[in-house]
């Protein structure tokens, strides 16, 4: 097993709905998705972000997209227009979540790194 940042395994993008901060977490492969559904828990996410998340955390699986929708309630200082956060709409939350450390098998890490290489190769413009 190896300790790596979640960024090795998934992509993330985040935004707001009032005082709700939401993070779309997209696994780089189906296998990784199955793994993440087990290791990314509401408790772990809440603990990672700390006191700024005043409400609950919910995680919705989206299996066809190999993705998790992570909902952080009362997490934006009251919402974009009244928050004291510099990042009023929580755009940085997704990438910040990707800094979370995860214990992963050598095989899965290899699979993730290969997937990343393939993605870059597939979409790069010659």
């Amino acid at each position, binding site marked *: 097993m190896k300790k790596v940042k979640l960024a090795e395994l998934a*992509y*993330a*993008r985040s*935004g*707001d*709905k*009032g*005082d*709700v901060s*939401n993070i*779309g977490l*997209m696994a780089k492969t189906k296998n990784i998705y199955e793994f993440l559904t087990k290791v990314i828990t509401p408790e772990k996410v809440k603990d*990672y*972000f*700390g*006191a*700024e998340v005043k409400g609950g955390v919910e995680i*919705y*699986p*989206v*299996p*066809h*997209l190999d*993705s998790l*929708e992570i*909902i952080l*309630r*009362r997490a934006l*200082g*009251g*919402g*974009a*227009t*009244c928050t*004291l*956060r*510099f*990042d009023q709409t929580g*755009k*940085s939350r997704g990438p*910040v*979540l990707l*800094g*979370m450390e995860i214990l992963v098998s050598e095989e899965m890490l290899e699979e993730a790194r290969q997937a990343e290489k393939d*993605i*870059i190769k597939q*979409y*790069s*413009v010659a």
Partner: protein
Amino acid sequence: MKKVVIGSGSAFWGDIFDPALEMAKSGEVQYMGFDHLAELTMALLNRMKEKNPEAGYIPDIVPWMKRLLPVTIKNNIKMISDAGGANPLQAAKEVAKVVKELNLAPMKIGVVGGDDILPYLDEIRAQGWKFKNLDTGEEDIDSIRDRVAAANAYTGADLIVKELANGADMVITGRVSDNALYVGPLMYEFGWKFDDPAYVDLIAAAVTVGHIIECSACVSGGMSNMWKVSERPWDIGFPIAEFYENGEAVITKPKGSGGIVNQWTVKEHLLYEIVDPANYMMPDGIGDFTALKLVEEERNRVRVINMKGKKRPDTLKVCIGFKDGFIGEGLVFFPAPDALEKAKWAEKWVRERFKKSGINFRELRVDFMGVNMLHGEAAAIEDLDYNEVGLRIAGRTNSYKEAEAVRREATHLWTMGPVGASFGVPMNVRPVVALWPSLVPRDAVKIESQLMEVN
């Protein structure tokens, strides 16, 4: 198989203009949607209208239409725009002037409004509807009623469909949902009806597709994890959806434009700014994003299949904005040596100053820029040898005067702080219009529309 091609021309007030014009010139679309309204833009537009009854719409619509209309008319593209804001009729009158000025008449403009429920909010309240706050769970709007600055319902596509059927070449709306700008033309073209169960999944598919393209560049390479592979991002193309009568759609962008559309950009956007992915609730229907699948057909073309959902809800979301204090903010940057230590010293200095001046804070926040401002508790504050660290101080107060004092004390750090303090341009104090998100019965909202003929 019949297909209808819709594209996104704008996602917010201040969005980049060129991609909209390029899309119109490409002639690849039949309809273009233009969204300019954020959650609390209506409060701002209401204030503009109070000062001047002929204001309250998004002023950009005038220069934009001057450049777009000659192209859209030539290429037979109909535009649906929510730039009407708090005054869609006035916006339509201004566009009519442009039409005449450029000799583009005759033209028919649909005008859709009635989303402003503030004039009869108390009437609905008196009937027992309390406008519970969806974020905080507070039961009754009475606690903030005297500070309400705007109350607009997110209305649906009903009247956009009606005015297109009446022959409108363009539709200008107030606060419809962003989504309805796209659902409207699809419902009109395919002849779907809200009450017919046969159309439930098709309308939900339109809601889903509207969600995918409504944020313009955000699905075609903007704000993306694909930033490394986005082609000529400075020439980014806005998204286009080819919607087929079988309920499938292809997400793409104008040929030759920059940016990228692939499974990842579509996923990113499907998951963006939503709550429960199985119940994406819009005024025209409920999208179930857990049912659909994505198929990459070729470069920059993603097919969305198996879109499903549920019938539209009986309530509409209503965005109530209320005045709720002021924010004062200050920013100072410190260079090495000892950048973080200097910032910590300055934090202590400013906190002592606040004690002396006796400001009553509702909330005070201090961030070290470059260290923990975005990460918060997710980052440990390490004593590294930073090249530079910023100190950001933000305070929320009840009075303007106190917020101004926060800003002012921060500026004093420029001359009284540690050596090297650098400060840029100070920010102005801003009034807070807080959001009270709630629901309102659909039947209680008096939506209205008319057709303006420009000859």
